[in-house]
C-alpha cells in the first residue's frame, strides 16, 4: 500500500545514491543510521514499528534539510561567530516584526487577554471548539480578501483552521486521496511536500515538468504528459496542487496558467489545490491573481468545478509568524469542510494565538499599512539580492513574490549534471559558508538552479553573504571567465528584460521568454 520508492524523481541520480554520496561528506547523525549496515538487533527494532518509521517518507534525508543541519552546527552571528554559516535556506519573513510589536504596544487589551477591559483568560483556556473562534475566522477571511484586492470574497464558514499549512495540506490529502492515489505538482516544488502530502497519507506525487526555456511556466503539454505518466504508473490522479506564488520560483502564476489549470481539472474531473501561502508577499507591479479570481472571471462560482478548487493559506510567510502555527483550508465543498474540520482536532490553533491574531487582523488600519510596508521592504530586499548576485555574474529568474530568488548557477557547474550541482552545493555550504537550497531538492529537472532566501536576515548579513559569494565565484576558473564576460552578458540580459517587460505589458496573454 505504501510506495517506499518515490516514482517522482525523473533526473539522473536516484535519491538513494544522492544520500549515500552526501553521507561520505558529512558526519552521520543518528538519523542516518539507516545507511549503515543493519545489525540484527536494529532490524528487529525496526520490525516492531510501523512502516512510516522505517521508510524515508519524512523526506528528511534530502539535501534541503541536510543543509539546515550543517547550519545548526555552525550558525553565523555578527559578533559571536562572524565566520559561521549564513542561513539562506530558510524562507522566513523577518522584515516587519517592528510593525507588529508597535501594534502590540498600542493594543494592551489583546496583549493581556482582555476584551473590553474584562479578562477572558478562562474562556480562552477552555476554548477547544474545532470550528475555531468565529471572530478569528472572520478576520482571516477579510485579510485574505484584502490581499486579493477585495475582488473576491471568502466565507468564514468555509474556512477550516489547521496547525500551519503543513497540517492543512496533509489534511486535504486525507480528504481527497486514497493511499496510492496521485496528485500532479509542477516542478520545482517545495521539498516539504514530499512529507506533507505523501508520508502518512500514502498519496503519491507525479511531477509536471517545467523548464527554464519558458521561465518554468506550466504548459498544457506538460500537464497532459504528467497525467499520462501517472496512468502509465497505474496511479489514479485525484488532482493538481500548485503553490501560487511559487516556492521556490518566487513568481506568481500568470492568468494564462491559472486558466489552463482550471480548464484541465474541469476536463479531467479532478481537484485543484492552490497553496497561496505567499499571496501577501507579492511585491512586483503586477497584482496577485488567485485561483478564486479566475473562478469568478470564468463565471464558475457555485458550480461543481468551484467545489473542486481549494485554497490553502497560512500566516507563516505573509505575517512572518511560523511559530504560531496558523494554517487554513478554504473549500467550497461542504463535505470537505466538514471532514477537514473534524480532522483539525489533530492540530487545532492555540486559543491564545487565535485571540491575539483576531484582534490584530481585525484592525484594518493595521492590515493595510502592514501589507503595503511588507511589500515595499520585500521588494527592496529582493533588489538588493538580485543586484548583488549580478555583480558576481549570477542571474536569477525574474521574480515578483516570495521570500527567495531562483538563482541560475548553471554556468558554475563543471558538467551539466546533478552530481556537479551537488559538488557546487557542497562548496557553497562548506567553503563559502552559505546554506542555500539546491534545485534537485526541489525536484527541478535541470541541474544548476538554487533557491536563495533574502528575508530572514539583516541587510548587513545579506551584504556579507553576497560578498562571500562574489569572492568565491571570482576565485574559480569559471568565475574568472565570467567576470570578464559578465559585463557583456548582463548588458544583453538587461536589454532582453526591458524588451520582455514591454512585451508583457502590450501582450498580457502571451507567454514571454522569461519571467
Amino acid at each position: 500500500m505504501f510506495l517506499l520508492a518515490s516514482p517522482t524523481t525523473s533526473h539522473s541520480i536516484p535519491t538513494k545514491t544522492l544520500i549515500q554520496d552526501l553521507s561520505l561528506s558529512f558526519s552521520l547523525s543518528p538519523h542516518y543510521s539507516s545507511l549503515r549496515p543493519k545489525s540484527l538487533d536494529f532490524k528487529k527494532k525496526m520490525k516492531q514499528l510501523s512502516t512510516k518509521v522505517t521508510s524515508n517518507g519524512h523526506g528528511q534525508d534530502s539535501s534541503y534539510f541536510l543543509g539546515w543541519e550543517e547550519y545548526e552546527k555552525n550558525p553565523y552571528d555578527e559578533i559571536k561567530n562572524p565566520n559561521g554559516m549564513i542561513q539562506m535556506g530558510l524562507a522566513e519573513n523577518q522584515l516587519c516584526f517592528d510593525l507588529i510589536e508597535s501594534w502590540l504596544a498600542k493594543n494592551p487589551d489583546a496583549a493581556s487577554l482582555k476584551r473590553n477591559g474584562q479578562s477572558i483568560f478562562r474562556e480562552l483556556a477552555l476554548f477547544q471548539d474545532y470550528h475555531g473562534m468565529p471572530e478569528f475566522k472572520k478576520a482571516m477571511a477579510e485579510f485574505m480578501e484584502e490581499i486579493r484586492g477585495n475582488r473576491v470574497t471568502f466565507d468564514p464558514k468555509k474556512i477550516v483552521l489547521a496547525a500551519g499549512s503543513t497540517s492543512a495540506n496533509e489534511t486535504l490529502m486525507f480528504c481527497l486521496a486514497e493511499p496510492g492515489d496521485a496528485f500532479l505538482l509542477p516542478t520545482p516544488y517545495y521539498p516539504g511536500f514530499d512529507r506533507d502530502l505523501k508520508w502518512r497519507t500514502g498519496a503519491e506525487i507525479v511531477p509536471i515538468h517545467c523548464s527554464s526555456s519558458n521561465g518554468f511556466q506550466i504548459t498544457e503539454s506538460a500537464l497532459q504528459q504528467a497525467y499520462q505518466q501517472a496512468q502509465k504508473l497505474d496511479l489514479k490522479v485525484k488532482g493538481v496542487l500548485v503553490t501560487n506564488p511559487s516556492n521556490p520560483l518566487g513568481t506568481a502564476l500568470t492568468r494564462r496558467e491559472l486558466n489552463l489549470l482550471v480548464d484541465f481539472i474541469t476536463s479531467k474531473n479532478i481537484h485543484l489545490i492552490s497553496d497561496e501561502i505567499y499571496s501577501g508577499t507579492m511585491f512586483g507591479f503586477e497584482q496577485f491573481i488567485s485561483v478564486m479570481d479566475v473562478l469568478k472571471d470564468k463565471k464558475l462560482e457555485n458550480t461543481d468545478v468551484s467545489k473542486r478548487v481549494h485554497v490553502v493559506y497560512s500566516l507563516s510567510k505573509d505575517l512572518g509568524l511560523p511559530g504560531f502555527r496558523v494554517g487554513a483550508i478554504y473549500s467550497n465543498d461542504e463535505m470537505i469542510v466538514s471532514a477537514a474540520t473534524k480532522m483539525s482536532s489533530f492540530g487545532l490553533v492555540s486559543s491564545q494565538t487565535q485571540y491575539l491574531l483576531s484582534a490584530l487582523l481585525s484592525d484594518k488600519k493595521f492590515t493595510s499599512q502592514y501589507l503595503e510596508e511588507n511589500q515595499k521592504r520585500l521588494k527592496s530586499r529582493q533588489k538588493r539580492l538580485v543586484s548583488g548576485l549580478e555583480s558576481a555574474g549570477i542571474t536569477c529568474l525574474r521574480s515578483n513574490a516570495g521570500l527567495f530568488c531562483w538563482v541560475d548557477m548553471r554556468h558554475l557547474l563543471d558538467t551539466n549534471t546533478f552530481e556537479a550541482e551537488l559538488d557546487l552545493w557542497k562548496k557553497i555550504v562548506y567553503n563559502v559558508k552559505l546554506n542555500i537550497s539546491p534545485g534537485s531538492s526541489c525536484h527541478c529537472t535541470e541541474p544548476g538552479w538554487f533557491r536563495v532566501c533574502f528575508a530572514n536576515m539583516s541587510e548587513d548579513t545579506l551584504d556579507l553573504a553576497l560578498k562571500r559569494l562574489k569572492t568565491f565565484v571570482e576565485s574559480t576558473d569559471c568565475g574568472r571567465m565570467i567576470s570578464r564576460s559578465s559585463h557583456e552578458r548582463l548588458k544583453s540580459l538587461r536589454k532582453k528584460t526591458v524588451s520582455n517587460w514591454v512585451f508583457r505589458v502590450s501582450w498580457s496573454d502571451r507567454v514571454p521568454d522569461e519571467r
Partner: protein
Amino acid sequence: MGSLKKNGGAILSRIATNDHHGENSEYFDGWKSYDKDPFHHSRNPCGIIQMGLAENQLCLELIEGWIKDNPKASICTPEGVGQFGDIAIFQDYHGLKEFRQAIAHFMGKARGGRVTFDPERIVMSGGATGANETIMFCLADPGDVFLVPSPYYAAFDRDLRWRTGVEIIPVHCYSSNSFKLTVEAVEWAYKKAQESNKKVKGLILTNPSNPLGTMLDKDTLKNLVRFVTRKNIHLVVDEIYAGTVFAGENFVSVAEVVNNVDSYEVNVDLIHIVYSLSKDMGLPGFRVGIIYSYNDLVVSCARKMSSFGLVSSQTQLMLASMLSDDRFVEIFLTENSRRLKIRHEDYTSGLKKAGITCLTSNAGLFVWMDLRHLLRDRNSFESEIELWHIIIDKVKLNVSPGSSFHCTEPGWFRACFANMDDDTLHAALRRIQAFVSKNHKIVENSSDSDQIVQSNNVKKQKWKQSNLRLSFRRLYEDGLSSPGIMSPRSPLLRT
C-alpha cells in the same frame, strides 16, 4: 465504511466520507439538547446542566493570577515583547528547550517526584488527541490491532483509528471486580485476536482511567509491563489525568514501573507515555499534547510527525516559564487535588442521598455512576438509552451513558463534576434529589441518613430503588422521544 460520496463527479476519500470520526452517533443527542438549552444561573436557570464535559475549571484563577504576576512570560506585554520576533519565527519541531525542560519537570512533580523525565524524549503534539494519533502512526500499520480496556474514552475510536487505519479490540472489564483491568483479561483478548489472524501491535490504556476515575495498582502495572515484553508488543499509557489524583494511594506512573522492574523483564523500547495539560491544568484551549517514549526511533519519528501539530511557540514560552516556577507548581498541584477532592465528596455524598452509588474512585474529573437499578431492563442497552433521555429531558442533566464508552454492562453513566461552579453542582444535585423523591413520594430526611444503622439504610435504599424503577417505568411507558437537533459544536473534543 460509508459509500464513496461524489463531489460533482470527483470522488472524495473514504476517510472523508465514512463515519469513523464517530460524530454521527446518537450519543450526541445530549450535547445537542444542551446546546439548545444551556443552563445559566440567571439567564436560564431551568436549562440543561452540562455534566458530560471532562474539563477542570477549578484552578483557573491560580493560573490567571500567575500570568498577571509574570508579564514577561507573554510575548505581547511591554515586558515580554522583546522576545516577540524570536518566538514568532520559532518553528523547530524539537520545541523550545526551556519548554521541554519545564514539561519534563512538571511531569515529574505531578508524579510526586517519584520519577524524572528526560527533556530529550519530550515530543510535542496537537493535544493528547494529536499525540494518540501520532503514536499509532509510529507503532502500527493499517489493519494492525491495538487492545484497549473497556470502558474507554469515546474519542479513541476516532483518534486511534480514523486516519491511521488501525483497529481497536476492547479488553472487557466488569463491575463484578470493580472494572479492574487484569492481565488475564488482556491475555485472553490477545489470544482471541491472534486466533482471528489479527496482528496485535500493542495495548493502549488511560491511567487514571476515563471514564472510571480509578488507577491501576503497581502490581498490575508491573505485570502488564512484563506481559507486553514477553509478547513483544507495545504499551501506550495515556496519563492525561495523572495530576488529578485527589485521594488514596499515590499515582503510579508506568515510568516508575520501568525504573522498578528488573531490566530483563522490561523492554523499554515498547513503553510510551501520552500526556497533556488539558486536564491537570485545565488548559485544553492551548493544545499542549506530549508523547514521551523510551524508544529512540519512536521519539525521532514522532518528532518529525509533530510538524503536523506543533504547540504554538507563544504558548510554549508562557508554559516554559510557568511550569519551571517550582513554587507555583507546588501550590497548584496541591490546591488542584484539594479542590477536586472536595468537589468529588460533595457530589458523591449528594448522590448517595438520592440512593445513587458510584464506583469508588480517587482521580479524574468525573464519577462512574451506577444507575442499573433504574433501568427498565437491566440487560438492555435500549433501556440505558431510554433512561438517558429521561435524565436529559426530565432531570435536565447531560451525563454520558456507559455504552458510549463501550461498557459491556448497561446502566453505568459518567457524570463530570469539575466543569462547573459549586452552585451549579448543587443545583444539579438538587434536581437529582428532587426528581428521585418526587417520583416515589418519599421525602428523605437528609440529616437522618448519617445516623441510620447500616442494615436499615440498605433496606431503605433497596425500597427506594424499586420504587424508582416503577416510577421510571411509567415514564418509559409515557414514551419519550429524543430531541435530535443538530449541534454546531463537536462534543468529542470535550469528552
